[in-house]
């Protein structure tokens, strides 16, 4: 059974894709729902990324949306710049390469200080970095004209560009008009690749080393495992996948801003909710939880003002039912007495 575990995960994703495509083709999917498919998928992607960090590596990150933010902005910047000069598919592919590479690079740079810390201190520093990234990107002004790039941290006037110059990043107003390259199929392919990478990694010697570090870093060191190296490896791969989610994100909306709603700590925490409810270390669970929990408030839209309230109550109740030692004990008693009866 264990052997086929990964195959089941891929099958679930492909089946879900097929169901949504059939619903869409037969006209059973509202345009509102259709608009939710890509976001749902990139949240699944970043949930997979975060689970690699939290579940497999065992380090709590509450700033993962920062890496998504970097992937989103670097790729959108590239796509805006090359919108006219490159053919669509190639441009989008290169946008992925760039978004992922930059997210990985920042994962590495941020990992150097972060991974020296432990537990909650590590978590709060990831939060800090997430906020720093968002904040700094909000202050960026980058334009391009015949003389080349212009850069400012103050405002667009400071750029001193020519009249026909192209303002690409406009501070808190972000990047407008990124080509709308993302679609559900591409998003699903990205999700499948992310799953492939993480699931295969877990079943390799590097994956075992990462989990050994998680379970007991002192014993891992004494067993000859280079703890720093493996922590960094997992963190960078996780950041890179979050970056890929960011590329999907930025190529799916007209105006990309580094707002708190999408890239702040609250957004990172929402991803963490997906990971915990899906099961820490359970990659397939993350995907399912991300999809269900992303769609849930949207499906509750009929209840309008009450939907987030209901969502919050559902969240609290689910946590207590799933995790409370007393409730678990009680559930075990009930199931065993049912079995006897």
């Amino acid at each position, binding site marked *: 059974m264990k052997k086929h575990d990964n195959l089941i995960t891929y099958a679930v994703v492909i089946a879900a894709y097929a169901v949504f495509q059939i619903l869409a083709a037969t006209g059973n999917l509202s345009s509102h729902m259709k608009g939710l498919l890509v976001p749902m998928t990139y949240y699944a992607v970043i949930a997979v990324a975060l689970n690699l960090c939290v579940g497999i590596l065992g380090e709590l990150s509450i700033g993962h949306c920062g890496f998504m933010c970097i992937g989103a902005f670097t790729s959108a910047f590239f796509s805006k710049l090359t919108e006219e000069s490159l053919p669509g598919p190639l441009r989008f592919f290169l946008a992925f390469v760039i978004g992922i590479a930059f997210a990985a690079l920042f994962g590495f740079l941020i990992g150097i200080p972060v991974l020296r810390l432990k537990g909650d201190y590590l978590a709060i520093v990831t939060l800090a970095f997430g906020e720093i990234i968002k904040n700094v990107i909000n202050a960026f002004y980058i334009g391009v004209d015949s003389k080349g790039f212009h850069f400012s941290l103050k405002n667009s006037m400071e750029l001193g560009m020519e009249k026909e110059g192209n303002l690409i990043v406009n501070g808190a107003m972000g990047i407008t008009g990124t080509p709308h390259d993302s679609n559900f199929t591409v998003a699903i392919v990205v999700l499948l690749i992310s799953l492939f990478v993480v699931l295969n990694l877990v079943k390799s010697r590097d994956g075992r080393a990462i989990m*050994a570090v998680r*379970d007991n870093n002192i014993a891992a060191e004494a067993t000859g495992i280079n703890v720093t190296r493996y922590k960094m490896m997992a963190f960078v791969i996780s950041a890179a996948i979050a970056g890929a989610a960011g590329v999907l994100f930025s190529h799916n909306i007209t105006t990309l801003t580094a707002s708190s709603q999408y890239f702040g700590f609250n957004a990172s925490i929402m991803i963490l909710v997906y990971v915990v409810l899906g099961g820490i270390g359970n990659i397939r669970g993350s995907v399912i939880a991300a999809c269900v929990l992303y769609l849930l408030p949207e499906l509750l839209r009929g209840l309008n003002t009450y939907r987030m309230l209901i969502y919050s109550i559902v969240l609290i109740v689910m946590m207590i039912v799933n995790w409370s030692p007393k409730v678990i004990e009680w559930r075990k008693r009930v199931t065993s007495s049912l079995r006897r009866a």
Partner: protein
Amino acid sequence: MALLEVNNLCISFGGLRAVDDFNITIEKGELYGLIGPNGAGKTTVFNLLTGVYKPNEGIIRLDGEDITRKSTIEINHAGVARTFQNIRLFKNMPVIDNVKVGLNERFKYSTLEGILHLGKYRKVEKEIDDEAMRLLKVFDLDSERDTLAANLPYGKQRKLEIARAMATNPKLLLLDEPAAGMNPNETKELMETIALVRSKFDMTILLIEHDMKLVSGICEKLTVLNFGRVLCQGETKEVLANPEVITAYLGG
């Protein structure tokens, strides 16, 4: 040449000399015991030997190679493996994966091959699997290969920790109170396991122990540590007959 040669090892924490002028020479194939009352500095010696602490003075040579200032990881690669007083397994991993982690540095393929499951991946994974199973069989753990390490009974956890250490193919095995918390039956089984490791792998072992029955039963030589200093050193029988050792243990 001795396998392990330690000269004048010293370390202080704050003002306290935890280990002072520690010397030991262990020949290849020996089973050597390190004993002493609680707080004598035995585990500190292990932590010095494995690079967890760096000594203030002294030199540690393994097979002629100076490993004094090396990191824990490098020391393991040089050929020192250990177990811990309070068992440290990879609890949320299956038994076999605990051993496979020990094989990590001996059977290699690149990260990319690992992620793509291509190239040397299949071949090397097969070798890792075979080698891990071979080790589990030696320690009679092969029937538990897929059990989570945390769910093993105590005695088997100790065994698994030894199996994992052996997987790194060490020259010297350090066992930190392997019999701690064991009942007489488990202790007996442990003695058999240690004997097995010696015969099967021709291993040199240094062990810390409180269980005098175990120590006198299997160790050839002993070093007694008291207040961080070597109290007495030599053949097991002679050391245990030494009146100073008896006082140190029984107080007086």
